[in-house]
């Protein structure tokens, strides 16, 4: 098999995807058991998109994300401990427990927020990209969103604005075919999302979202274009969610069948990657088991950290409604 990355890079991508998968499986389980105060939208099946895109980003680059955003945060370098603690609503979480799954922010590593609103984070990415350009930081911004967002005005206005201003932004549509339970093809006459880029005068590229190397390749080109002043790109990553819309939502519904899910699972990004590592890198089962055990342990530590962390003090309820005056003037991200 042809090598598609260095051994180190291939293992790194595998680890990132595995970290997301195991985090999500454990979070889903804890949610079902009632240990978490809110429901979750899990990223299981879509790991290659976050891993492939974020592997091409620097720490200073900003991402905006979605309701299904744990994968993006982990791929961008979020500490699983603090992420899990945030899902638990604990004081040690990224937002001190105030945010939860859909409000994960970590400025220092370029996470400008998961988001509870479909399309809600797309415009911010345009602003973050412009901000980086004006400050000459060399950074770019990436907006992750689902197929559900592409018929929202935020998609149209943001892509047009970014193109008009040559903003250094990469728009990444994770097309998992369904907005909750609404098939994209039922609500638009053009479900080839990447082709919409031409309406904004920017390049659009569709990619196999289960193949992390393919995603990485299109990301590399889009990031290079954005960083070099060439403006935005729209990437459509064709992918699939193996689980329900949110934890507790059955995976099969009026909109899709168990057979369809099984067909997609044959192209599970982790399965494809394990096969690659075995064939192209000669990895043994023991090699892969070692990685799995290490990441599983990391996730277990995150769970223990979250469980043993304190709740936020109720006396702080009204803290942070407004920023104090000394924060005026801000600072670079």
């Amino acid at each position, binding site marked *: 098999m042809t090598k598609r990355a260095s051994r180190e890079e291939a293992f790194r991508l595998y680890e990132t995807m595995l970290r997301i998968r195991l985090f999500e499986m454990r979070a889903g389980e804890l949610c079902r058991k009632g240990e978490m105060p809110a429901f979750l939208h899990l990223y299981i099946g879509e790991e290659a998109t976050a891993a492939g895109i974020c592997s091409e980003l620097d720490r200073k680059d900003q991402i905006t994300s979605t309701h299904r955003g744990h994968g993006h945060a982990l791929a961008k370098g979020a500490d699983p401990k603090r992420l899990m603690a945030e899902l638990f609503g604990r004081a040690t979480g990224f937002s001190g427990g105030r945010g939860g799954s859909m409000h994960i922010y970590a400025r220092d590593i370029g996470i400008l927020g998961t988001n509870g609103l479909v399309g*809600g984070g797309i415009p*911010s990415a345009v602003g973050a990209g412009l901000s980086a350009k004006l400050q000459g930081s060399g950074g770019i911004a990436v907006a992750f969103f689902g197929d559900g967002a592409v018929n929202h005005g935020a998609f149209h206005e943001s892509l047009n*604005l970014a193109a*008009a201003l040559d903003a250094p932004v990469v728009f990444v549509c994770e097309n998992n075919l369904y907005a909750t339970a609404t098939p994209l093809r039922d609500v638009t006459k053009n479900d080839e999302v990447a082709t919409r880029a031409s309406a904004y005068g920017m390049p659009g590229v569709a990619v196999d979202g289960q193949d992390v190397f393919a995603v990485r390749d299109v990301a590399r080109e889009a990031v290079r274009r954005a960083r070099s002043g060439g403006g935005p790109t729209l990437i459509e990553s064709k992918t699939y969610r193996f689980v329900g819309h949110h934890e507790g939502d059955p995976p099969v519904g009026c909109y899709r069948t168990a057979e369809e899910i099984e067909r997609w699972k044959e192209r599970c990004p982790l399965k494809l990657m394990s096969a690659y590592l075995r064939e192209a890198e000669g990895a043994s089962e023991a090699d892969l088991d070692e990685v799995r055990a290490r990441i599983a342990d990391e996730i277990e530590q995150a769970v223990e950290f979250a469980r043993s962390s304190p709740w936020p003090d109720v006396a702080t309820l009204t803290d942070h409604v407004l920023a104090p005056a000394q924060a005026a003037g801000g600072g670079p991200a």
Partner: protein
Amino acid sequence: MSTISNLDAVRDAIAVEMRLNPRIILFGEGTGERGGSFAHTKGLWQEFGPSRLIDTPVSELGFVGAAVGAAATGMHPIADMMFVDFIADAMSQLVNQAAKLHYASGGKVTVPMVVRASMGSVRGAAAHHSGCLYPWFMHIPGLKVVTYSNPADGYGLMRTALRDPNPVVFLDHKALFGVRGEAPQPDLLVPFGQAAVCREGRDVTVVAVAAMVPRALEAAESVASDVSVEVIDPRTLVPLDMDAIFASVEKTGRLLIADEAYPVCSFASEVAAAVASECLYDLDAPVRRLNSAPVTHPLSPPLEEAVVPSAAQIADAVRELMAE
């Protein structure tokens, strides 16, 4: 006395702050080389250039959202809505993103930005260009809300807004744009949360917002031979200087609120409720509220004139309060 218009005073404030702070940028429709629909950004593009005076497409949602992202990453943007009515298209970005980011991030992310918009009734503006929507913003934790009634306050408040680390909704009343007043000292900064006593009096307190302030002053003058009216301009609606209002009511015992917003869940209802809670026993008469009629602004001049409280109506309400 050197004078200046409200419009030019606020424009000057933006220019002064832009010279001091290279992080300030301005998004708007026609606010670049053209200088804005009201000439309210005149000359800024020529001084600061197209990278800071960013002419946008008609994309309120898009550029308010872009301002949020720029603010959260180190810039201090102004999103110029032209008319406040247009912000309805961008409310999700203002309310769900800008206002909530600081809190939901546990104080990690600040969103220093100004949303500037013109508001209020002027002849012929009709249904889509007359909104006086500050109660929408007052309701949302995380937003500051500013308006003004004279050039010095407009200047000093805009400068303060551009130094505040929070999203600030800055509202100019269209009917006051061309009105001239005493020019501010260049170094003037007006702090948020400090009401101004525009006219001192003993008998009745009139709290008036934006274009209601000159009408309240006209009314006060018209009844001056019989009634001593105190007129208070809160200037910032969030934070609101209730202490100044309480102190005045304790002195006068009578309160009228003149508020161009619609009556339900308005500025007036908020002030009336606070006064009822805090100084009911200082009152010698029930609190009176004057608001715009709860109708869509009609075009026809006789209908339109019947919508917004007039100086004569304010004067009548003051006399009625004295008769209680």
